[in-house]
């Protein structure tokens, strides 16, 4: 019974932890402009993150080495250093987006200026990283993030024409008003939002720290394989809400306040309040993960001691890195840049950075020196190579598409 509870808790936090500000914004923007014609990308992205996360978890658990240690070992100091610079910068961008997202969501809850919330949000993130037992923070953020199910509830309450939604999705039929390059730009962005690399740093580092056993590995595989697809379903619900309410009105999403209007329309103030709490929790959880990831990447590259189980004084450089990253994020936000714009940027660059982490993991997962008998099977490798092609194609296409479409405008 207790075991079942553990599994359920794991799955629920995986669902709640799947959606972050990137998924939220990108899905709503896409829903309001392209209806459900990009749902296939969410499916591709979810299968990809399941594959990638479970592979990196297995590599970390079996080899005892986290993702960035492996990147350094396989690529050598120079190539891995370039990889580190890119990964750290993009992770910082994502952290900035998440902290901005917390501030925007708190603004919706309180009507106090987001600029005043930014330092408060960053401080709260730091305080939790500094003081709170990790299991507690992960579960609280994950379970409260589950309130985003409100988007799914809203979709049913809206009582849409399901046949029409299905027609938009299969076969994908983008509205004639949008340019084909814009369509593909958002396809890449949506893919980047679903497969954000920080989740992999986070996941693998956890596996090393906790010294996963075969049992832990099996349970985490279940969490990923069940939780992430359900999280993906949440993403689709967000897009569908926008497609049902905003698209027909000719509204293009450019702010967080627009994203929650369909929920208000469907469920009134109560559902709206629940969803806002969900957004705060989801972005807060993701801010914790990205802040930790900034410490993980640098510490693992340089061989510092790291980890959430250590007293801060036993991992001093790791904690200082996280503080610096948070301060940088606050500094960026204080230039009054639009957090939604930062978010859109971060998901596209996430797509650019994906091969940097994906390729080393795929290679090491096949190396018996690291993996012993746990090397990838044939089926995993076949899927792994398909995704290698997809990931590289998305990364190569991302920046040209961004330039060509003026970032999707």
């Amino acid at each position: 019974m207790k075991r079942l509870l553990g599994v359920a808790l794991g799955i629920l936090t995986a669902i709640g932890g799947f959606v972050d500000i990137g998924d939220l914004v990108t899905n709503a923007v896409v829903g309001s402009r392209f209806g459900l014609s990009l749902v296939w990308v969410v499916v591709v992205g979810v299968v990809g993150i399941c594959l990638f996360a479970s592979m990196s978890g297995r590599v970390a658990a079996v080899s005892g080495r986290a993702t960035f240690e492996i990147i350094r070992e396989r690529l050598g100091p120079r190539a891995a250093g370039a990889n580190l610079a890119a990964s750290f910068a993009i992770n910082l961008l994502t952290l900035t987006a998440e902290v901005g997202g917390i501030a925007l969501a708190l603004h919706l809850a309180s009507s106090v200026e987001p600029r005043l919330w930014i330092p408060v949000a960053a401080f709260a993130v730091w305080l939790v990283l500094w003081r709170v037992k990790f299991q507690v923070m992960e579960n609280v953020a994950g379970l409260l993030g589950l309130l985003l199910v409100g988007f799914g509830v809203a979709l049913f309450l809206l009582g849409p024409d399901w046949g029409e939604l299905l027609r938009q999705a299969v076969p994908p039929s983008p509205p004639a008003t949008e340019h084909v390059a814009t369509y593909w730009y958002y396809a890449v962005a949506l893919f980047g939002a679903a497969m954000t690399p920080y989740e992999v740093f986070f996941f693998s580092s956890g596996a090393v720290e906790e010294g996963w056993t075969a049992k832990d590995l099996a349970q985490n595989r279940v969490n990923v394989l069940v939780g992430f697809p359900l999280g993906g379903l949440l993403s689709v619900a967000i897009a569908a809400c926008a497609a049902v309410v905003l698209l027909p009105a000719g509204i293009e999403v450019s702010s967080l306040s627009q994203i929650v209007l369909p929920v208000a329309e469907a469920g009134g103030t109560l559902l709206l309040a629940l969803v806002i709490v969900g957004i705060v929790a989801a972005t807060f959880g993701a801010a914790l993960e990205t802040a930790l990831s900034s410490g993980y990447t640098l510490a693992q590259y340089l061989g510092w001691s790291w980890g959430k189980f250590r007293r801060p004084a036993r991992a001093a450089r790791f904690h200082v890195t996280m503080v610096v990253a948070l301060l940088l994020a606050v500094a960026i936000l204080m230039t009054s840049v639009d957090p939604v714009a930062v978010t859109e940027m971060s998901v596209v660059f996430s797509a650019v950075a994906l091969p940097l982490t994906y390729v080393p993991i795929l290679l090491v997962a096949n190396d018996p020196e690291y993996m012993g008998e746990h090397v990838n099977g044939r089926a995993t490798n076949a899927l792994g190579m398909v995704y290698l092609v997809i990931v590289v194609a998305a990364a190569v296409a991302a920046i040209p598409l961004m330039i060509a479409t003026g970032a999707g405008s």
Partner: protein
Amino acid sequence: MSRDDSPPTGVRVVDVRLHLLSRQVLDVDGEPVTTVDDLELVAADAPEDGRRDAVPGEPAEVGAILTGPVLLTRLLGGRPPASRWEPVPWSDVGHVGTAIELTVQADSLDVHWTEDWLREHVVGRIPGGRHDPEEES
């Protein structure tokens, strides 16, 4: 050198880049110490006190794991003066697997000064910095 004198039971062949460079170094308690940024080669079978630099063509062995500024120069080219190397003597190495495990504690090595400095002057001074996150407060 404090290597214990048990006779070798065999030989394992490894390639430096493949199996040693850039690997994580853990101390005897499993605490991360550093990564292997470079290795120093010395002449094999040299007298204990007068370690000589390796000579091409004559028996050579690994004298120490190097870290610190060596990384920067491996990235950018050039090489730091020997006084700036931060060496971990190879005789302190216990196991070589997916990580290099030492037989000594990290605190006994002097490759740790940035960590120590930050611990003493920054992190340790912030309230809660020495608090164990896994204990109830």
